[in-house]
């Protein structure tokens, strides 16, 4: 009894002691402290680098523990991330540790497109690539080769193709994306937008989005600035057939009839000019063609625009006044993917002209003119040979203002029968052409006719399945790329450096490009031992400390005035040296010198216009296999207006979650996709998030999830000014999917 009693006291004393130590009262167990658990995800090493989940290139800090990347956080020193990341940047580990990554070089063993490969050594794969490219070059000249590239690692391959003397160096980010915008703004102000766009969103008092869905389009800095502006009381005007995230934050949402934005813009200008709400002093000082513009929009009244756009005249007037009231800090966002209807350069012109009327170019809260740091080139022992003329246009007079090579044109020039164009071999870096060029059947036709196609990628996207040789690249977290010093309000220089060693047998792009070059007898163009030496040399020559850069990932330079308020004297690199409201250049080429509205073809009865866009956690098809990001979005849905859903044939009204098939005007059928029946979209269009509906066997997660908008885009209307492929001209009807198990 005594013994048992002592035991009891001992235990009780221990318990009291533990409680006293922890300082917290635990209830009946009372045996331990109350630890605040630390998940221990901070790295033993933290490596600064920059992101490649999209093309914005934010600064990230990669935490590495026991050789494994535990988490990615925003680099506070980097002007584009400012310590914050978007969901995709946070989810970069999902790419690094994707079990479906390309692991070894592959060589095709069956017919093209059958996705049958054998694993080979790097030696064999590189020999094959170099030999085939050389053979085409020797037989047909460098103009028979073509490079498609997207992403920052592509610089090594562009360098390789320049060394070969090939002019067909293209990226779908131009003719399938931002091209019309660049030409429209260049014609008006003498400067393209580029990336990152030099927008002073944070200081704008009024922000107008024309179809741009910032917030779903998750360019980190722009979204940060948008939130800052909202916090400062800025108001939004959102023009979109869909009630976007931004529309939900807007003072005005204008659910415009798709394809009629130019009419609305002209009517806004009509109100602003008629009522004298434009910046007269600014225009007198900087712009040419005001009288022509005034006359041009005189009859484009809100009453004229109403039946076209579906936006009531009083609302057009009210929003025009609202936009003008905040000038010059009234930002017309230039957008990014602007290849919609084939008249997109003219719409971009209308946006640029409105910007000029508001006097917001070169002003606080408008569009800035930032500078960039100068980084000397790595000295080359020899100059590039003269590049061949790009074969992306049937004749030089066509698409006269294209200032980059048209990826779609290069594809067309590879189809037999295109006279004098005959491209015979492709190299594809980091861009899934099957999902980014319109009409994938046309792309397949071009590929089937090639002598050779090689792709360099991190994942087995559809284009890899169509390639003869597939080279597995290391991901952005395993490689050093070209240094980056873009024009930005706060000029900076950033480096991408390897966080961990390349996994599997993947190799960094610089090495792949050099090894191909060596085998093609072009070693002289690659005089560096590796990309680190390359980057160090350039950084050092520019006068920056490599050690600092290695530790911080980024250095910032001296700011230069970016707007009049900072002392910038406005200059315009147009033909006249002024803002060209009226474009003589367009007139001389036979195009409208002032934007005209031309109605796009309406959807046939029972059909919907197919629109597509983005979700914040995905970058096209590049992330849809990322299992980390897919946790919150593993498939897309087709947005259908609630009233329109009731009319969809099939007996009962269409409900959210029902499986449907979209059938386009050419009879192409989508994979089954779930409907999202919503009030948030007009009844004459449907909407898909782009990048889903993969068919590649290698994308074991993404394959068969959702529907591919690209597959349904069998038609494109080409912008005659610059060759952009307007893709919002396709129509679909909705069929109920066969019952699936």
């Amino acid at each position: 009894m005594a013994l048992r009693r002592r035991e009891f006291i001992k235990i009780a004393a221990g318990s009291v002691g533990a409680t006293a130590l922890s300082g917290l009262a635990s209830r009946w167990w009372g045996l331990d402290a109350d630890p605040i658990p630390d998940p221990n995800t901070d790295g033993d090493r933290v490596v600064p680098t920059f992101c490649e989940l999209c093309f914005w290139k934010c600064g990230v800090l990669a935490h590495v523990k026991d050789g494994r990347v535990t988490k990615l956080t925003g680099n506070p020193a980097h002007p584009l991330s400012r310590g914050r990341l978007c969901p995709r940047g946070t989810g970069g580990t999902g790419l690094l540790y994707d079990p479906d990554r390309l692991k070894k070089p592959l060589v095709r063993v069956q017919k093209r497109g059958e996705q049958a490969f054998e694993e080979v050594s790097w030696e064999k794969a590189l020999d094959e690539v170099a030999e085939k490219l050389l053979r085409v070059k020797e037989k047909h000249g460098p103009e028979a080769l073509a490079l498609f590239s997207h992403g920052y690692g592509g610089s090594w391959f562009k360098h390789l193709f320049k060394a070969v003397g090939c002019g067909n160096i293209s990226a779908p980010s131009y003719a399938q994306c931002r091209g019309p915008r660049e030409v429209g703004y260049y014609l008006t102000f003498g400067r393209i937008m580029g990336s990152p766009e030099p927008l002073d969103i944070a200081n704008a008092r009024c922000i107008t989005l024309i179809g741009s869905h910032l917030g779903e389009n998750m360019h980190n800095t722009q979204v940060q600035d948008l939130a800052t502006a909202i916090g400062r009381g800025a108001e939004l005007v959102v023009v979109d057939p869909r009630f976007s995230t931004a529309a939900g934050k807007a003072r005005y949402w204008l659910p415009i009839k798709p394809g009629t934005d130019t009419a609305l813009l002209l009517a806004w200008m009509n109100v602003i000019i008629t009522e004298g709400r434009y910046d007269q002093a600014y225009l007198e000082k900087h712009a040419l063609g005001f009288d022509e513009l005034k006359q041009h929009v005189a009859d484009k009244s809100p009453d004229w625009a109403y039946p076209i756009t579906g936006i009531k005249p009083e609302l057009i007037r009210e929003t025009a006044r609202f936009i003008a009231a905040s000038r010059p800090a009234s930002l017309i966002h230039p957008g990014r993917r602007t290849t919609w209807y084939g008249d997109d350069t003219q719409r971009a012109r209308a946006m640029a002209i409105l910007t000029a009327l508001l006097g917001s170019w070169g002003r606080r809260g408008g569009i800035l003119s930032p500078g960039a740091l100068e980084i000397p080139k790595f000295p080359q022992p020899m100059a590039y040979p003269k590049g061949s003329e790009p074969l992306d246009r049937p004749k030089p007079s066509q698409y006269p203002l294209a200032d980059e090579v048209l990826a779609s044109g290069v594809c067309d020039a590879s189809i037999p029968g295109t006279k004098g164009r005959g491209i015979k071999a492709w190299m594809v870096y980091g861009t899934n052409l099957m999902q980014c060029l319109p009409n994938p059947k046309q792309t397949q036709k071009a590929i089937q006719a090639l002598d050779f196609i090689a792709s360099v990628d991190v994942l087995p996207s559809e284009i890899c399945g169509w390639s003869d040789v597939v080279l597995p690249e290391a991901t952005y977290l395993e490689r050093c790329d070209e240094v980056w010093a873009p024009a930005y309000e706060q000029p900076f220089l950033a480096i991408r450096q390897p966080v961990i060693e390349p996994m599997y047998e993947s190799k960094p792009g610089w090495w792949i490009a050099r090894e191909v070059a060596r085998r093609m007898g072009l070693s002289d163009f690659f005089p560096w031992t590796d990309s680190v030496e390359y980057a160090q040399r350039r950084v050092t020559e520019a006068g920056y400390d490599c050690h600092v850069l290695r530790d911080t990932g980024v250095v910032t330079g001296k700011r230069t005035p970016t707007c009049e308020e900072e002392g910038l004297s406005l200059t315009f690199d147009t033909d006249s040296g002024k803002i060209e409201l009226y474009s003589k250049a367009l007139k001389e080429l036979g195009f409208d010198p002032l934007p005209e509205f031309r109605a796009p073809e309406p959807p046939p009865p029972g059909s919907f216009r197919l629109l597509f866009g983005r979700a914040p956690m995905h970058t096209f098809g590049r992330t849809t296999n990322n299992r980390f990001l897919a946790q919150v979005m593993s498939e897309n849905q087709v947005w259908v207006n609630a009233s329109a859903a009731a009319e969809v044939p099939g007996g009962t009204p269409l409900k959210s979650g029902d499986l449907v098939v979209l059938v386009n005007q050419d009879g192409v059928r989508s994979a089954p996709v779930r409907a999202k029946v919503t009030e948030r979209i007009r009844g004459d269009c449907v909407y898909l998030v782009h990048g889903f509906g993969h068919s590649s066997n290698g994308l074991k997660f993404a394959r068969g999830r959702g529907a591919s908008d690209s597959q349904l885009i069998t038609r494109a209307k080409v912008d005659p000014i610059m060759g952009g492929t307007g893709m919002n001209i396709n129509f679909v009807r909705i069929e109920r999917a066969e019952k699936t198990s």
Partner: protein
Amino acid sequence: MKEPRYAMTMDTSRCVGCHACVFACQGENALPEHGFRDWIEVETGGKFPHLTQQIRSHRCNHCETAPCVTACPTGASHVSEGGTVLVTRHKCTGCKACMAACPYDARYVHPEGYVDKCTFCLHRVKRNQQPACVEVCPTQALTFGNLSDPNSEVAQKVSSRRHVVQRPSLGLEPQLYFLLPTAPLAQAGD
């Protein structure tokens, strides 16, 4: 000095529902696949084209009167520093009484058998860092701090901005304050 009271404000006028908070939390806390301590809710009202929308980032409300703590039979769910509600893993039997008691559905069962939830990243707070969701948020929609300190940013926001809490009628005094837009929104046009 008054006892600290940790709280968070979530500015609905800023949030775009991008899910960066959700992923940053998963990374920071090494959560299992599909284990979420925070999540996004989008609420749309009205009929086309007269619509309203509110987007919110949610997590445990760290209630002043926490029903999960009362419901927990083992004492695993408890109130820790600054009123933060935590779960002591090895005391948790995974009985889910707390999950039934929580009106906010803020908890999930970890594959290792215990119930898991938001900790306000107290391990980071102790190192003078912000919770991972607050740090990552591209829209700076989240603010964390000590509500007992009237000079803290969180206290200033709660006192100066119109706000709501979720299900106030339950009387649980939730400590996640949803800030409302300062101006009227979405005068949709047709």
